[in-house]
């Protein structure tokens, strides 16, 4: 009896938390389907379901363009970050060289530097290189990650070094060891890093905000910000846009949550 009461309490608490978590999302979905004049009314359900609100968003602002920009930039940043981080991680985890531990400690130390510290000099650098307001300016500075190097190094260290040595005895070069032995085995780590990088960059706000001036280069977060400040009264459309904004993330999470959860748990436990 006591056990049943305890389980009932447990499920009650879990359900309460789930409702608190979901209520704002539910409100967002319902509001995105309402006619404008019903947005401020208390009744939760729309009198007519306005699915064309979603189409309206695409007509009123270049939302498809923002989508493309965000996906394009995030995809490039993810590809470059994974490549450069994996190569560097290989050097830290598998090769012996003189200043290795010192350089690695320097990498780790910069993880503590607040983004705003590097943001200002990077902005002035972009001004000098005339990369303001360009895709290159959005992509290149984000393509080198100390965190990614750290994460992949931890992954590489769990792969037995005996495999490398066996390959080298068979005459493989270091590059072949990296590309044909270590990388395939580190695939879960790479997928984790790719997901983190992609999701982080997809939602990135500060850098595109200061860098981008032209409308056709705006990424989703920036587009959303301007949509909010110009059409802020159209709450139904705003909610439709917000939902379209987070939809890819939800899909990505549901598909890949195994990698994400493990990555989060592993990246931190052995910090």
């Amino acid at each position, binding site marked *: 009896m006591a056990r049943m009461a305890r*389980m009932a309490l447990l499920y009650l*608490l*879990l359900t309460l*938390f789930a409702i608190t*978590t*979901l209520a*704002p999302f539910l*409100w967002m979905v319902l509001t995105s389907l309402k006619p404008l004049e019903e947005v*401020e009314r208390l009744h939760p359900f729309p009198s007519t379901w306005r699915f064309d609100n979603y189409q309206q968003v695409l007509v009123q602002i270049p939302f498809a363009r923002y989508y493309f920009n965000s996906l394009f930039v995030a995809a490039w940043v993810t590809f470059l970050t994974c490549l*450069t*981080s994996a*190569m*560097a991680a*290989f*050097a830290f985890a598998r*090769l*012996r*060289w003189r200043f290795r531990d010192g*350089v690695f400690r*320097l*990498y780790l130390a*910069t993880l*503590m530097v*607040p*983004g*705003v*510290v*590097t*943001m*200002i*000099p*990077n*902005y002035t*650098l972009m001004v000098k290189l005339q990369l303001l307001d360009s895709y290159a300016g959005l992509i290149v500075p984000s*393509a*080198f990650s*100390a965190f990614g190097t750290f994460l992949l190094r931890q992954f590489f260290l769990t792969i037995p070094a005996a495999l490398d040595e066996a390959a080298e005895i068979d005459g493989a070069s*270091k590059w072949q060891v990296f590309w044909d032995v270590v990388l395939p085995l580190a695939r879960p780590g790479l997928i984790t890093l790719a997901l983190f990088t992609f999701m982080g960059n997809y*939602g990135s*706000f*500060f850098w595109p*905000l200061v860098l981008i001036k032209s409308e056709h280069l705006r990424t989703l977060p920036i587009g959303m*910000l301007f949509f*909010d400040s110009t059409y802020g009264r159209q709450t139904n459309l*705003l*909610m439709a*846009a*917000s939902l379209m*904004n*987070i939809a890819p*993330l*939800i899909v990505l*999470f549901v598909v890949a*949550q195994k990698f*994400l*959860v493990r990555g*989060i*748990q592993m990246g*931190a*436990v052995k910090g």
Partner: protein
Amino acid sequence: MSRMGGSRARREGWTALGFLLPNLLGFLVFTSGPVLFSLAISFSNWNLQQTVPFRWIGVENYAHMLRDTEFWLYTINTFYFLLGLPVSIAGSLFLALLLSQQIRGVVVYRTLFYLPSFTSGVALMILWKSLYNPDFGLINTVIRNVSDAFHLGITPPEWLLSTKNVLGLEVERIGVARAQWGLGARDAIIIMGIWTAIGGNNMLLYLAALTNIPQELIEAGQIDGAGRWALFRHIVWPQLAPTTFFIVVMSFIGGLQGGFEQARVMTGGGPAGTTTTLSYYIYTRAFEEFQIGYASAVSWTLFALIFVLTWINWRFGNREVHY
């Protein structure tokens, strides 16, 4: 491996440089270089609008900062936002404890709780801005309905429009005033932050740590007749110490840098500057007023603050951790 000769190390050195180079170049140009560069220009009067000629001015920016009331008020705001951390971390632990019981549908609950954290960003902030609308928002609607139903006579808070706060901090000077006591914009942002973070990474970390606790320890405790609370207090909590320590350190580092998006998207730093954190202040100084020198000085001060607090955490927190 111990027999490794010097020549092999030297040979691998060049290979290593090859592997490292792409990342290292980017690291030098976009991370470590800028850190040093920003320290240097924090001693200059550099202004991107070039209304005044460039000049090295020594510590003048830092001296000016100490006299800048705004800087101090925004520092207080930055720390005020940390008030949410204990609630959020304790909440994550609580959720992890619930999920670690023998229940059905763990993955479903876990996914639901994690939803706000992986979709967080501008879109969700815009959502919360409408939830907080004092007249039509979902939150005040619920409060008003509950209040009417039970005849409680509650006046709902003005949320993002109000300078009130749970500590009663004054707006224009450093002090406490009774009239300021209540719920306002800062608290609204904290509540949103707790909602976002409670089922996020911290919960997952605690969940992993909980499953790693050796079952023998728990059983030994049960044999000794320990109750639920004693079991948690004397066995589970000490085993979680390294995780708690990690979470606290990371939360401090993140929290002190935070508040930028919220201010830019939801409040514009207002009302009356009450939601302006140091990051947002640095942004406005650098990218709206183009005072690159002064903004760099403030950003280095923020860096120093984070560094010192992390050091204190390591120095005194680590002692409490028994591996």
